[in-house]
């Protein structure tokens, strides 16, 4: 066989190998994609954790819930709406919270202020934030007032 014929044969062989390689990599890619889909699913539980923390604040008699022989979830005892009391009940260092209670006046309490020094949740890239507003009844000296309680919680992503 002359030199040209050898080169032609070799080229033909390589083209066959390239086709085989492409088929191999297509199959391998499919396998990797299929295996990777369930592996890359991620459970985001930040929302659930924030929800639990908010409910802890509202339902727990040691936090905001009014208590008179029994606990009334959703009725806020105004005497419990203090920084000292809420710091005791919200004893986590990983979450920051801002509570705004509006009746005929408005009061704000910030918890774990090192996490929310500036405007609350200004940095949405690095923090996961949630913000929920509740219609509450506020117990103040045996008088029940209508109020709005806004609870915003954040944590580092």
């Amino acid at each position, binding site marked *: 066989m002359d*030199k040209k014929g*050898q*080169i032609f044969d*070799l*080229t033909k062989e*390589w083209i066959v*190998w*390239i086709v085989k*390689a*492409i088929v191999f*990599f*297509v199959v*391998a*890619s499919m396998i*990797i*994609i299929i295996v*990777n*889909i*369930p592996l*890359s*699913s*991620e*459970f*985001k*539980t930040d*929302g*659930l954790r924030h*929800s*639990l923390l*908010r*409910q802890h604040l*509202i339902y727990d008699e040691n936090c905001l819930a009014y208590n008179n022989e029994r606990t009334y*979830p*959703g*009725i806020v005892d105004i005497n419990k709406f203090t920084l000292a009391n809420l710091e005791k009940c919200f004893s986590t260092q990983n979450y920051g919270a801002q509570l705004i209670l509006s009746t005929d006046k408005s009061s704000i309490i910030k918890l774990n202020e090192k996490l929310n020094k500036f405007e609350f949740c200004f940095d949405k890239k690095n923090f996961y*934030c*949630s*913000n*929920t*507003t*509740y*219609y*509450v*009844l506020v117990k103040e000296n045996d008088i*029940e007032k*209508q109020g*709005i309680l806004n609870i915003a919680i954040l944590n580092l992503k």
Partner: protein
Amino acid sequence: MKKGTEEIMFVFSLILISLVLTLAFITFSIAGRGKVEEKVTAISSNEININLLNYLRTKDENNNTLSELIIYSYYKNDYNKVALMLENLIKKVHDKEKCSIYYLNAVAMKNNEKLFEVTSLGKTNDAQRVSTFILIPTLDSENNIKINYVEGCKNE
């Protein structure tokens, strides 16, 4: 091996390497994009439950709660006043920015008859609807009044 053959093999091996790298890049970029994020928000209904509970606890000018007024209206078979009070209350205190949709209705459980409803006209495509209910007992032990409440809020 002859010099010419070596050169051709070298060229083909370069082509092969670039092909492998391209396929690997495509594979991993597609797999990366296919990442599934599951958000767990299973207990949202507990949160709007507080709103419904407090709507029904709210007192009128005669110191009657709205749940008492619903029972009173049930025996009088006239729900206009209580429906209007609930509508005004929800309009006043509801978080319209985040939750533009709300729907409240009262159903007599014995015959599944709808007694009254209060609803918003808000619409949003990106809404997560959460529902809850509370049962109000009547003198007829078989017939409770079921208050259903739905909020449609923007996804966070």
